[in-house]
């Protein structure tokens, strides 16, 4: 139904997506190993950004606590990686340092790679669904919701730091070498994991576009702009927001697990309040109503962060703040919105005055 208006733009978008995919596939031959590792990390992060497009851009629900789900995915996989390096009776190094003598049962089950991977895909969505259901059923939204999620991120990071003997504390979990029997330092493994990440990003983007292109996308936008109207048309708007929050949590958890693989570390510094806000900034800059914008935003901001903070470490946060203010005031729809506007203007210029003639119906 809606396609009639967007039909001419579709092939161009499809071509753009294919070109981006092709570029991602040949990137290992174009980039240095260091830059390829960065690209892999930031592509992993773009899954988090996509989750925010669904939740914030389309659903109007701002979450400042996505770091929690990022952390759940990252820690779930890192726990397995940590145990995979050890003999049957050995304990992870940080447990030994903290005087822990026996592996807690909820650590032990992560010895199984199946449990770890299942946890990445299942735990965060379940937590998210229960949390969102409890909140949205009570019609809590807007800034209150943002504050609750921010508190959640703070509590989660604090918990991780305080439980040194079980979580690795402030340093988190790091120093692991094998995944499913593959040596993580071998170039072939690195390349394989890079392509796995590209695959997840492509699948995530495709799945999200499918979800948003159908009736669910329309209902989600409707619940964003007119919860009350929807209610008085006989719909309960809460389930749409709950599902958006749950899917976003799934994407963010996978994002955290992939990032942990590429970065070789997961720690409270990646899951707390500040990183959670940074995630929102990527999306604001890239364009919160566009899946492509989310990927662009995550890549652009993080590459800029890497380059600028290496050269001028103190300057980065100011630069990020400035960029954020600039985007919010000048480009409310982000970089993707800029492109959309250019496309709209071109389309407008091509067919002058044809749309205004339709308007005279009533008078």
């Amino acid at each position, binding site marked *: *139904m809606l396609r009639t208006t967007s039909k001419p733009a579709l092939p161009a978008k499809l071509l753009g997506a294919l070109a981006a995919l092709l570029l991602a596939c040949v990137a290992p031959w174009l980039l240095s190993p260091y830059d390829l590792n960065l690209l892999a990390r930031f592509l992993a992060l773009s899954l988090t950004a996509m989750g925010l497009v669904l939740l914030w851009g389309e659903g109007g629900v701002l979450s400042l606590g996505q770091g929690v789900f990022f952390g759940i995915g990252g820690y779930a996989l890192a726990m397995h990686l940590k145990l995979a390096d050890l003999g049957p009776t050995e304990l992870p190094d940080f447990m030994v340092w903290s005087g822990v003598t026996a592996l807690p049962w909820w650590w032990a089950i992560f010895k199984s790679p199946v449990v770890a991977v299942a946890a990445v895909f299942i735990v965060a969505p379940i937590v998210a669904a229960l949390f969102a259901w409890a909140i949205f059923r009570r019609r809590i939204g807007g800034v209150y919701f943002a504050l609750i999620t921010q508190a959640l991120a703070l509590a989660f990071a604090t918990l991780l730091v305080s439980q040194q003997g079980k979580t690795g504390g402030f340093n988190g979990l790091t120093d692991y070498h094998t995944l499913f029997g593959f040596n993580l330092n071998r170039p072939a493994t690195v390349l394989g994991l890079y392509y796995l990440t590209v695959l997840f990003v492509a699948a995530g983007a495709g799945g999200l576009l499918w979800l948003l292109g159908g009736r669910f996308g329309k*209902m989600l936008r409707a619940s964003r702009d007119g919860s009350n109207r929807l209610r008085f048309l*006989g719909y309960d708007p809460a389930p*749409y927001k709950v599902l958006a929050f749950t899917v976003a949590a799934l994407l963010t958890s996978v994002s955290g697990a992939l990032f942990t693989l590429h970065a070789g570390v997961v720690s409270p510094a990646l899951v707390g309040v500040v990183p959670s806000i940074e995630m929102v900034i990527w999306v604001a800059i890239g364009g919160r109503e566009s899946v492509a914008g989310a990927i662009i935003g995550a890549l652009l901001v993080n590459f800029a962060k890497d380059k600028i903070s290496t050269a001028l470490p103190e300057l980065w946060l100011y630069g990020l703040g400035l960029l954020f203010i600039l985007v919010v005031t000048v480009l409310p729809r982000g970089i993707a919105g800029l492109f959309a506007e250019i496309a709209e203007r071109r389309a407008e210029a091509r067919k002058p005055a044809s749309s205004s003639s*339709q308007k*005279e119906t009533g008078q």
Partner: protein
Amino acid sequence: MSAPLLELANVTVDFDGFKAINDLSLTIPAGSMTVVIGPNGAGKSTMCDAIIGRVRPSAGRVLLRGEEIQGAAEHAVVGKGICRKFQTPGVLVALSVIDNLIIAATTDRRWWKSLTRRPDEAAQARAEEILALVGLEGRRDALAGNLSHGEKQWLEIGMVVATDAELLLLDEPTAGMGAAESTQTAEIVKGLVGKHAVLVIDHDIDFVAQLGGRVVVLHQGQLLREGTLAEVRADAEVAAIYLGRA
């Protein structure tokens, strides 16, 4: 004899001691047209709120086909067959006109149905019908947010009709409209009577006259008079509190 479509039986709505509706009784037969008038603060909108489940009466009963519905959740009341249009247009701005109508016309409103790709043929056909009914064919694919104020009002009337509710509550459907638009709105609303029972709230006496039908005058939360517009207009008490200035 079967129960009337809607019956308010001694309904009182109390806002911390202020009785916005005070012991009000009213029946609305199926397929009828009822126009509610009254000065500001007479309790017209509160009466709608009580019917639709937005406020809970502190006393009295709201009966739909003899079944008590006071206290039910808003979306549940809609499922039973009452739909309301608010004073300010409440269209879904990010969706096209036709999508607004399709959402309203969809009868299976369970959330997981939104995950299927199969279009709801019945809802689409009904949406196209309503589109013609409210005269918005030329704006079919426009975003609802880009409509003029009058067009938004018509779209929302269309959405309320599209739910196929037996009772339609239209709260000031001509708010912000010019004379020509009002006349067109009156034609649309008159066309609904018979299939639906319509309850209209409005201030504009010209519009009320165009609608015809039974007029109910509310004053200070109570029913003051009931009758044709001419009868009500001839009433000295009504003239004193309300129509005198018109």
